[in-house]
């Protein structure tokens, strides 16, 4: 085998231009594929991080039946946020942080006429609001990404503050987008949040708007953040929450921790993975992978066609040489192997150079960062493309194996030449 390998390498070196052209196709193809993969990886990663570290978290814990009934009245399925319960969750393996949340909805009104000012009622503005009441400290540990979207002002410092962080797109129409000025306002002029409490009775509290959220992905613009303790007081639901959001050290453990927590918490609670809560995000990421796989297939096909073409030329140019080899007793099998090994060399070398080049470009793009903004979002994302070893190994082996495979046909034709005719060819 070793003289064959040596010979095929020498053969490739003999016709440098053709070898370079054939290898060039492989290099360009693989390089493009690598850069594309790096980009797709970063898009998927960004989507995943938004969900896992920004909105939904990796796991959520609710009272049983909550996700099914969330549209009717989430407050009915609230539960007590106790240190024992928290410990049960936090002591499980891989659990890194936990945040209690109370999801509620109501309305927010601003600019109500102060006195007998009925003439100015037109200035009053009211909008519907869905809010997550959170403990600011624990929420930041569990969903850190969310705080990168805080584009103006600040997060309320304590769970019993009387302040809100709302989406910029609703703050504007409400006229409370100037958060710096809001801080100077006396509490009599703060917006009022009206919400039905757990029993349905109307309840209200004044909250200052001190922070604005933008978003890097299209999200529910009515979503706001409110201080947990203040909201519990407003809704007359002291220590009650609707969910825990759980962050793990790595999302790959989600299913395993889910099982563990389900066992620890019993049937009163349901533990849901992010992809059960938002299955369409997982589908979205999966679809992107599928599309990429199809594109890769087409790329590789084109690269392989280039190799076939090059190998046939190779055979045609060396018909007399093949005849000579056969005349001095080289076996058909050896001739077949010779050409297949040439093909493998083309594929492997091209793939290697292409991957290295692509990886270099990906590294460069990652250093610079690609700013993009998703449709309907107000913040720019910086994408940082990256590659996984998995992809590099797969791409290299597919190209090499593919090149070997497609070389079999021209090599077989070469090995079937009749020595006499081959020798007399021009």
């Amino acid at each position, binding site marked *: 085998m070793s003289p064959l390998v040596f010979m095929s390498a020498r053969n490739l070196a003999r016709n440098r231009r053709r070898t370079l052209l054939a290898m060039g196709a492989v290099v360009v193809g693989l390089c493009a594929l690598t850069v594309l993969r790096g980009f797709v990886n970063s898009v998927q990663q960004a989507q995943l991080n938004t969900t896992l570290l920004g909105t939904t978290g990796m796991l959520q814990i609710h009272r049983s039946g909550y996700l099914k009934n969330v549209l009717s009245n989430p407050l009915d399925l609230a539960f007590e946020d106790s240190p024992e319960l928290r410990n049960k969750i936090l002591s499980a393996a891989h659990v890194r942080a936990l945040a209690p949340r109370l999801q509620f909805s109501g309305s927010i009104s601003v600019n109500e006429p102060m006195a007998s000012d009925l003439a100015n009622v037109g200035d*009053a503005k009211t909008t519907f609001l869905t809010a997550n009441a959170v403990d600011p400290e624990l929420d930041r540990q569990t969903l850190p990404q969310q705080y990168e979207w805080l584009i103006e002002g600040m997060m309320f410092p304590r769970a019993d503050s009387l302040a809100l962080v709302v989406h910029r797109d609703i703050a504007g129409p409400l006229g409370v987008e100037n958060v710096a000025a809001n801080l100077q306002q006396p509490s009599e002029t703060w917006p009022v949040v009206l919400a039905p409490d757990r029993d349905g009775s109307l309840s209200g509290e004044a909250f200052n708007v001190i922070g604005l959220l933008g978003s890097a992905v299209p999200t529910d613009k009515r979503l706001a953040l409110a201080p947990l303790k203040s909201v519990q007081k407003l809704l007359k639901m002291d220590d009650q929450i609707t969910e825990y959001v759980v962050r793990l050290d790595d999302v790959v453990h989600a299913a395993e921790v889910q099982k563990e927590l389900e066992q620890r918490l019993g049937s009163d609670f349901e533990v849901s993975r992010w992809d059960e809560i938002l299955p369409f995000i997982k589908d979205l990421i999966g679809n992107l992978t599928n599309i990429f796989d199809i594109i890769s297939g087409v790329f590789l096909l084109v690269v392989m066609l280039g190799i076939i073409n090059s190998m046939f030329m190779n055979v045609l140019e060396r018909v007399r040489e093949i005849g000579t080899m056969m005349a001095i007793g080289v076996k058909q099998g050896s001739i077949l192997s010779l050409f297949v090994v040439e093909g493998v060399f083309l594929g492997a070398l091209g793939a290697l150079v292409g991957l290295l080049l692509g990886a270099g470009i990906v590294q460069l793009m990652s250093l610079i960062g690609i700013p993009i903004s998703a449709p309907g979002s107000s913040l720019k994302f910086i994408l940082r493309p990256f590659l996984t070893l998995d992809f590099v190994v797969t791409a290299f082996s597919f190209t090499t194996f593919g090149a070997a495979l497609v070389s079999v046909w021209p090599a077989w034709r070469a090995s079937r030449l009749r020595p006499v005719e081959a020798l007399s060819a021009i």
Partner: protein
Amino acid sequence: MRFSQSYIFPILATMVGVAAFFSSSQAAEITAESLLEKYDSVMGPESFDSTARMTATREDGTKRVYEMRFVKKGTEKFRIWFKGPAAVSGQEVLRVGENSWVYLPNLKRATRIANRDSFQGGDFNNADVLRVNYKADYNAALAASEKPDLWLIELKAKNSSTSYDAIKLWMRKSDSMPVRGEYYGTSGKILRSAEFSEYKEFSKGYRRPAKVLMKNELIKERSTELLTQSMKVEVSFPDQRFTLPDLGK
């Protein structure tokens, strides 16, 4: 033509007679508009001062009882004081024209509320309680009633600001008292149904159903009963009581 002229007078006379007969019989009979007017005057007289108890039953079977006082002046002004339970005691509601506010004692401020929002978490919406003026908001037409002793009128919203898209009202032929109502959303889906009962003379010459049971047709386990306990009509309150600064006083 000359020949036929002699017939014209009797034919005309007959037509006029027939027309007169029908129009007079219609005048004697009840029209959709007159029934609607009657409904408005029974359920929301021009001015009144009443006390009521609302019992809201929720899907889990729990009940919450609210005690209230209502005062109405003309079609434009309405006020509510909540006396209980403790959670809402001290809350007040004011309606002036199209706008309604709730006054929260903890904030000492009034905040606007919407017509379509639920009234204290029950199955009435704010407009059901604060704004009984169907004649202004709906077009009515008589429809064939399946029950011989009841009128059925069908109401269609005049504009999109009303709280229901369509209403069906059944009223007694004997005294035009409302018996049943069905309330529909824009999709034609039934949202609520009401049963009126316990007809009672609250003031001299003024009768109305004391009990209205509003059933939630979307969540069948839910219903809310509004029981009028006392009601004085033709009372007079100063306009000043229907202003925002008066809330909380």
